[in-house]
């Protein structure tokens, strides 16, 4: 009898076991640990809104802005979160179109992460502006004041890019959830039954429904695919379109997109490594999936490595003293530690993933993912805030000292994101039941040769 090597992309469970294991994560009573986690996230969210209220009342002077640094922690954190929101759509849409088999076990959690990260990012343009109550002036709609936004402004493009991305990615998440919610509906009772019945949109699993569903999913995947590349390109143009040294680079769009996907996968790893243990899904999200996620991290991390090198090369090659000063100060200026944090956490740490032993070592991956999260926040900090500390007027250079208002908003944004994600994973299938089932090999009748 020929031994057929086990294909690691294929689940080892039966159809019934998949449903059972995933539905159990929802029907099991929440543990005390869950309440503590959700409570902590809720408190941090409260902190976010209290700090926002203080900013509304007293003005942005509470935050640590120091001219000429006009964009600091809030825009940094905005780009950080919008970047995280890119891995989800890459995994759920682009890898879907490429028929990549390993995405099935992880795409639901990354997609949820995407939607919540974009929801978090969307808060920041509002927090950041000086007159927060007028943020709706950014939205073009016919109004009595004839106030039309300036379509030349990259910030305007940002509004379009992010609102489109939020719409498409949340639609994608909700549509993908429908068959799974129906599976949950069939295993709960009482008011929960009513709730999930409503959310399942009358799903019965009929052939015609599957046909429409798979078509809709394919089209949405095709629609979401260009957005993965365009949204963060547009975000990068917020910077690249101005003439500030350190911002004015032609590589910004691909550089930012690679960084976004890199940071997004970092956050995915940080989230699902503990999650699979807590929810008992270790047999579904396996070393095979982490190996592939790590390869994607290595790929995008290497693009970042190249981009960092290219930035320094261009600064030297350009002969522009302002550009050269900016990059010199990134590595050896007063905030050298931030510059090196970015380079070490992103360019160097990602290179560890060349080794298969590290790629399938789950604790090591978790530690690396934390480095990625820190490194990518600092990348945006270095690019955005530190480039502004030394612009064209050397006698007006400044240094920035973030205050409690900056840190509370940053911590609160993690709470806001975490609260949504915590509520999601306990109430919705965090692993796509139906897609896992599709991967289960067909039962075959034994051949006559084997049956003797």
């Amino acid at each position, binding site marked *: 009898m020929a031994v057929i090597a086990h294909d690691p992309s294929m689940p080892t469970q039966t159809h019934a076991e998949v449903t059972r294991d995933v539905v159990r994560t929802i029907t099991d009573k929440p543990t005390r640990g869950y309440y503590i986690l959700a409570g902590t996230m809720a408190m941090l969210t409260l902190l976010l809104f209290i700090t926002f209220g203080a900013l509304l009342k*007293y*003005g*942005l*002077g509470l935050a640590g*802005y*120091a*001219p*000429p640094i*006009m*964009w600091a922690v809030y825009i940094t954190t905005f780009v950080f979160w919008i970047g995280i929101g890119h891995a989800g759509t890459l995994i759920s849409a682009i890898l879907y179109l490429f028929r990549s088999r390993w995405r099935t076990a992880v795409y639901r959690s990354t997609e949820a992460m995407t939607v919540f990260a974009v929801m978090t990012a969307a808060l920041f*343009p509002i927090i*950041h*502006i*000086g*007159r*927060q109550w*007028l*943020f709706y*002036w*950014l939205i073009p709609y016919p109004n009595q004041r004839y*106030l*039309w*936004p*300036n379509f*030349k*402004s*990259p*910030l*305007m493009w940002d*509004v379009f890019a992010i609102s489109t991305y939020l719409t498409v990615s949340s639609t994608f998440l909700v549509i993908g959830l429908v068959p799974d919610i129906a599976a949950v509906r069939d295993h709960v009772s009482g008011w929960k039954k009513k709730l999930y019945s409503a959310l399942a949109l009358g799903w019965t699993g009929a052939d015609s429904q599957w046909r429409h569903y798979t078509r809709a999913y394919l089209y949405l995947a095709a629609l979401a695919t260009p957005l993965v590349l365009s949204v963060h390109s547009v975000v990068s143009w*917020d910077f690249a*379109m*101005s*003439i*500030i040294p350190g911002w004015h680079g032609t590589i910004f769009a691909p550089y930012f997109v690679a960084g976004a996907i890199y940071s997004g996968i970092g956050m995915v790893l940080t989230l699902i490594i503990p999650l699979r243990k807590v929810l008992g899904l270790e047999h579904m999200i396996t070393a095979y999936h982490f190996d592939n996620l790590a390869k994607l991290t290595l790929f995008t991390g290497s693009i970042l490595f190249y981009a960092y090198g290219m930035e320094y090369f261009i600064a030297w090659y350009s002969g522009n003293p302002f550009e050269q000063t900016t990059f010199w100060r990134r590595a050896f200026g007063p905030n050298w530690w931030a510059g090196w944090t970015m380079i070490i956490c992103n360019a160097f740490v990602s290179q560890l993933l060349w080794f298969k032993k590290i790629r399938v070592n789950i604790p090591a991956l978790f530690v690396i993912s934390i480095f990625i999260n820190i490194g990518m926040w600092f990348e945006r900090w270095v690019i955005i805030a530190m480039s*502004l500390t030394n*612009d*064209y*007027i050397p*006698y*007006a*250079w*400044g*240094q920035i*000292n973030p205050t409690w208002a900056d840190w509370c908003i940053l911590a609160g944004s993690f709470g806001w994101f975490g609260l949504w994600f915590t509520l999601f994973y306990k109430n919705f299938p965090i692993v796509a039941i139906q897609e896992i089932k599709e991967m289960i090999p067909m039962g075959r009748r034994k051949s006559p040769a084997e049956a003797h």
Partner: protein
Amino acid sequence: MSMGRREFLRTGLLATGAAAGGVAVKERLVADREEAAEKKMTVALTPDGQLVAVPVGAPAPPRPPTPAEVRRGIPGRKWVMVIDLAKCDGCGECVSACRKAHFIPTDREWIRLYKKQDSPETAPYWFPKPCFHCDDPPCTKVCPVGATFKREDGLVLIDNLRCIGCRFCMAACPFSARVFNWSRPSEDPTETRPGAAEPEAGLPRRVGTVEKCDFCPDNLRQGKMPHCVMSCDMAAMYFGDENEDAVTDSAGETLRLAQLLRDRAGYRHLDDLGTSPRVYYLPPSNRRFPAPGEAGARTGKEPAPPGETRGLE
């Protein structure tokens, strides 16, 4: 003798400020009857629909510009500034005159005075830096709500009613010309100085909005030069109209702009950035007073360290 516009508006606001209704206006006019009888006042209707007391026979006062005119600029003009670094002795009069005229809080300056030295071997000099009102301004392009705009007369202004405070213009300006209202302004100068409420003066200040040097468009409409230019003891600042090819200093000397720039090798600061500033500098050659740091030099006014320029007193 005709009334100045300031005086006219003050009278008008006195009369109309109390005008909760027609009765109030009437009472006010009755109270001023003696004065009115003396000056032969009458009641007139302003373009914006207010009743004001004006002397009989007075010529119509200059009409305040409409919002559309504010955004278009003064027709036929092309304002330009020339700063002669050879004459600037760093006294800082321009900074304080600007502060006084625009009620600028102590945490910021619209025109800044820097001590500049291009290389260790060259002599230091004083460098007043207003907004350059660039012809290709990076700031107006990035404003998402169109609050800052370039006018036909060359000025770059801010409509602080429209500004939402995203500070993109501040990040985009390579010359750090713009300042921000980080907290609620402690005073509203339009209350103590009714004349300050010109549509082009950027007053009252609003929390969370950007402001900057505006070349005093209210002065320009009256045929006067900006406050900094008029206050310069050394006559180091020239102001004028590029279309007329003429600039004038505080001493009243008027020169041909093109010839001045040619004879004195005028240049624009960081011209290679491509923003086309409307402020020219004349190199600090043949100075008739000690350079900064030499014996007998004026101390000037050192700009506040950038880290400490935040928050209102």
